[in-house]
């Protein structure tokens, strides 16, 4: 394919670039804020954003057909000063060397940070506000690694699907016309209308910024077109110029314009707040009219469309997520989580797969970079088998993509969030495996994580943290006095209740802090934000729910309950006192006890009574989380570890499951590594006993498959059957690594040879060699059985 030469050149440039801190955005924001003291915050933010658009770097690189960048570097980590400047302050000397996601920092940038950014923003960022306001009980659990809850204070909003459809079909001009009309209706003598007035003004300013940025790219393209001796490239540059000149200011007219406008808007919202999980969503749906019209008019061929999509895919891989060292441990690999989705059903509940669905799958097959995150909504009843087959062909490439989602379960999750069915049909996967709705829904999908291994431990220590010796949680009774399994279970539930309460309190603080984090550039594509003249951060979107509370260590909790039930209370083989001593000593001198605990039946083997424990305890947890409300709605549970099972494990001592102290916890809803002995069907059966639909922020399952398995026609057919079986069982998500163990070991030994090796970490894909050694070890340690196995 001719077009692939261009794609490979573009790709090489991205792969060959080391991530670097990018302070341009922060310096421009600082300059603007210094000149707008005293004005309303939303207006200041909009003006700061517009100045960034007016002054930022607008480089266009060779070969590009889609242009733009939120920053000034190819792989830049953008520092958003107003949210989290102090993160860099704390890591000024270490960020280039840190274990997870290092960024190089140039000396001149370091100086600018010390001279300009720090003096201005000290005491003003949302991260500092959060640190000052975190509730004491929440802090105690956070500091001991029992919950992780800083995430939303060290980066911007994210975890949302902007209204891309509106940007493409109405253009900024359409949105501004509505904002102006709303402004005209206001009466500044009426209480509340003043804040609406300045808010609508901030929308107009942000829109003006985006328009200006697009026009600056147009000018740069014209300049390069005039300067280049290559007539073919000059023509390409003139097309780029024409595209940026027209869209997103006006509604896009062609497929190429639509892709360009979409990407410039994507840059804009990342510039406004660098954060993970700005999800382009259902591109095969909202781009299809442009594609079909171009084809009908003879302006475009499928191959031309493929090249444009591939170019866009490379742009998605450029920006890097900047976050603090600890948060990076929980989501390693610079993951921007820009989740693109294909498949599913349309608004009438019909098959939504179209030609573009296939081209989008092909783009990921062509480019094989770590972004965008590609998701499939597979609707078994409605989507064609040919589509499923194409999905398996992509799985076979071993990039870890796509994330395969069971559409019916996703639709039910949205409905459980309070979205009516007619709109739930339009859901899209978000970030890792969360659920979202384009341009209509506001929540943090993954506000905080609860360490379930830690919960078991606290029930066995009467609320004392083993590592620090501090009492940090509820006193649930002396465990030596537990006379029955139910006593132990009750203590575990009480510790769960305590942790959920602490997280909910923290979530309410974050909500409060983040209401002063206006995002007019994001909000302008949410119809209701303009209509209500209310920012996204304040609940302007059509639907709002409580934030996501995420659970990590699913198998550790189930296996610990099962082992105590069987070994201590049913067999009486080990007394509670012996168990407690063995755990305190990390099984030193008690290897026989550890052996008995390890021999107890484990989750992941389709063992009925163990899986019943899973069904019961996770229903309890979902009930517990959903019993709380925030200002915005019911709190929302989810199970997506990203890579947090590794750092969480470092904080937890030995567990009754037989797991040794300070080792990683199990990943997602997967069994603990090496404990599943019955093969993939048994794993899926066990996993299906968790009530997936209740965990509305998604559930995550990783499996690995050996390359030989997918080498034959019958292997492909059986993978398709396996995926259909998974849907029948009501499991929400699965993702496959097609990699053999030897490859991984070799990649660990000789990383220089495996620079491009992609691996599914947990709900996202990263470069294997850029992961920390212990995360690498964890991936290698997942059992690989014959055929398909869990990972």
């Amino acid at each position, binding site marked *: 394919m001719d077009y692939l030469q261009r794609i490979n050149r573009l790709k090489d440039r991205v792969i060959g670039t080391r991530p670097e801190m990018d302070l341009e955005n922060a310096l421009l924001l600082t300059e603007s804020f210094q000149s707008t003291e005293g004005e309303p915050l939303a207006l200041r933010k909009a003006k700061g954003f517009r100045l960034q658009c007016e002054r930022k770097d607008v480089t266009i690189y060779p070969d590009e057909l889609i242009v733009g960048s939120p920053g000034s570097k190819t792989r830049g980590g953008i520092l958003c000063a107003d949210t989290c400047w102090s993160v860099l302050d704390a890591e000024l000397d270490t960020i280039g060397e840190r274990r997870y996601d290092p960024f190089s920092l140039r000396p001149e940038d370091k100086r600018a940070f010390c001279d300009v950014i720090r003096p201005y923003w000290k005491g003003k960022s949302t991260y500092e506000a959060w640190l000052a306001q975190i509730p004491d009980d929440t802090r105690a659990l956070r500091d001991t690694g029992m919950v992780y809850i800083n995430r939303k204070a060290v980066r911007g909003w994210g975890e949302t699907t902007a209204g891309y459809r509106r940007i493409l079909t109405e253009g900024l001009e359409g949105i501004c016309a509505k904002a102006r009309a709303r402004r005209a209706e206001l009466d500044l003598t009426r209480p509340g209308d003043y804040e609406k007035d300045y808010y609508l003004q901030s929308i107009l300013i942000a829109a003006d910024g985006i328009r200006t940025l697009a026009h600056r790219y147009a000018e740069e393209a014209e300049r390069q077109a005039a300067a280049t001796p290559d007539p073919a490239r000059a023509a390409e540059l003139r097309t780029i110029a024409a595209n940026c000149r027209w869209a997103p200011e006006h509604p896009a007219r062609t497929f190429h314009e639509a892709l360009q406008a979409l990407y410039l808007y994507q840059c804009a919202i990342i510039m406004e707040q660098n954060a993970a999980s700005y999800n382009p969503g259902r591109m095969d749906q909202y781009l299809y009219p442009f594609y079909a019209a171009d084809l009908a008019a003879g302006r475009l061929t499928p191959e031309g469309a493929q090249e444009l999509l591939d170019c866009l895919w490379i742009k998605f891989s450029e920006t890097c997520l900047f976050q603090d060292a600890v948060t990076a441990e929980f989501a390693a690999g610079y993951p921007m989580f820009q989740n693109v989705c294909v498949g599913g059903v349309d608004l009438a509940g019909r098959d939504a797969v179209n030609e573009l669905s296939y081209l989008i799958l092909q783009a990921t097959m062509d480019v094989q970079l770590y972004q965008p995150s590609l998701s499939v909504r597979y609707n078994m009843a409605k989507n064609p088998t040919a589509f499923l087959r194409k999905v398996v062909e992509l799985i076979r490439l071993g990039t870890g993509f796509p994330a395969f989602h069971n559409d019916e379960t996703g639709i039910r999750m949205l409905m459980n969030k309070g979205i009516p069915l007619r709109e739930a049909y339009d859901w899209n996967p978000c970030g890792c495996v969360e659920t979202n709705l384009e341009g209509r829904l506001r929540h943090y999908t993954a506000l905080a994580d609860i360490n379930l291994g830690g919960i078991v431990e606290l029930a066995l220590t009467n609320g004392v943290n083993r590592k620090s010796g501090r009492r940090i949680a509820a006193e649930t009774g002396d465990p030596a006095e537990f006379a029955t399994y139910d006593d132990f279970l009750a203590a575990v539930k009480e510790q769960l209740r305590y942790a959920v309460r602490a997280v909910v309190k923290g979530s309410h603080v974050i909500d409060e802090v983040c209401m002063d984090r206006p995002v007019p550039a994001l909000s302008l594509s949410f119809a209701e934000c303009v209509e209500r003249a209310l920012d996204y951060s304040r609940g302007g979107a059509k639907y709002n729910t409580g934030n996501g509370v995420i659970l990590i260590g699913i198998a550790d909790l189930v296996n610990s309950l099962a082992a105590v039930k069987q070994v201590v209370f049913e067999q009486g083989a080990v007394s509670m006192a012996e168990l407690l001593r063995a755990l305190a000593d990390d099984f030193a001198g008690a290897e026989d006890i550890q052996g008995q605990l390890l021999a107890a039946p484990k989750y992941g083997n*389709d063992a009925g009574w163990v899986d019943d424990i899973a069904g019961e305890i996770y229903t309890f947890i979902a009930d517990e989380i959903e019993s709380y409300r925030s200002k915005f709605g019911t709190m929302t549970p989810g199970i997506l570890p990203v890579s947090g099972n590794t750092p969480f494990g470092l904080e937890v001592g030995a567990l009754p499951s037989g797991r040794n102290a300070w080792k990683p916890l199990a990943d997602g809803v997967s069994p603990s590594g090496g404990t599943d002995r*019955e*093969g*993939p*069907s*048994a794993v899926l*059966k066990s996993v299906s006993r968790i009530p997936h639909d209740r965990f509305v922020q998604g559930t995550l399952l990783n499996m690995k498959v050996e390359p030989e*398995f997918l080498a*034959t026609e*019958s*292997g492909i*057919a*059986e993978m*398709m*059957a*396996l995926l*259909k*079986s998974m849907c*029948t*069982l009501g499991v929400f998500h699965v993702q496959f690594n097609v990699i053999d163990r030897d490859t991984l070991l070799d990649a660990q030994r000789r990383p220089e040879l495996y620079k491009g090796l992609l691996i599914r970490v947990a709900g996202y894909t990263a470069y294997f060699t850029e992961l920390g050694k212990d995360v690498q070890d964890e991936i290698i340690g997942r059992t690989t059985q014959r*055929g*398909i196995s869990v990972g």
Partner: protein
Amino acid sequence: MVSALGELARTPGMVLRIERASIHDGPGIRTVVFLKGCPLACQWCSTPESQSPLPQTGLDQQVYGRVMTAHEVVDEVLKDEVFYFHSGGGVTVSGGEPLAQSAFTAAVLRGTKEHGIHTAIETTLFGSRPNVARVLAWTDHLLVDIKHVEDAEHRRWTGVANSAILENLRAVAASDFAGTITARVPLLPGVNDDDLNLFRTALICKEIPQLDQLELLPYHRLGRAAYRNLGLDYALDALEPPSAAHLADRLEYLNNAVPEVKTVLAR
């Protein structure tokens, strides 16, 4: 189904192990029930722990073989019915030799079939005619090995004559057995991979109306650890597995020599 329940519960068998989600033992995703006890002693056998009809303890202290009722086996098989539905898979009773426990095998197959699930057996066909008939009554798919067409060679490598096997195969072919048959040759360099043996094997296959294909199963040595574990010697230590080129060559030979028989490499 009420009819078979009592019989199932009363019929015990000696099971080596049950392997779920197999893709190597018949169509689709299958549960394979490996039984203990085999009248043959093939020198290349990759599961030597399946040969004795009695439980054995390995050097690893694991006990190989346990008594299960057919009812218990069927319950285990039913756990994966969703996967059979989507893949066209089902249960495969394998060996040891299923015919050596024909009442038990028939009960497992019947109990499974009553749930509408596809059934298969992997057999040497070394058994009495009534035992073959009893099992095939509940079998949809028959996987049978033709290890060597020359009786003397067959005796040398497997310990038994091949006459009963080939007669059973011809009898099934001529019977009203309505299922499908896959014939397989475990391909051992220098043992049974010569032109003549393969040609004659394919000619036998040609006469089987129920045949879907002839599969070549490349010899492998992955079973060696199992021999060590049982304190047994592995007779074929010096035998190298066939190369990919050799396999391709044998396949090409058969496809040219007997094109009427669809011959493939087993996956």
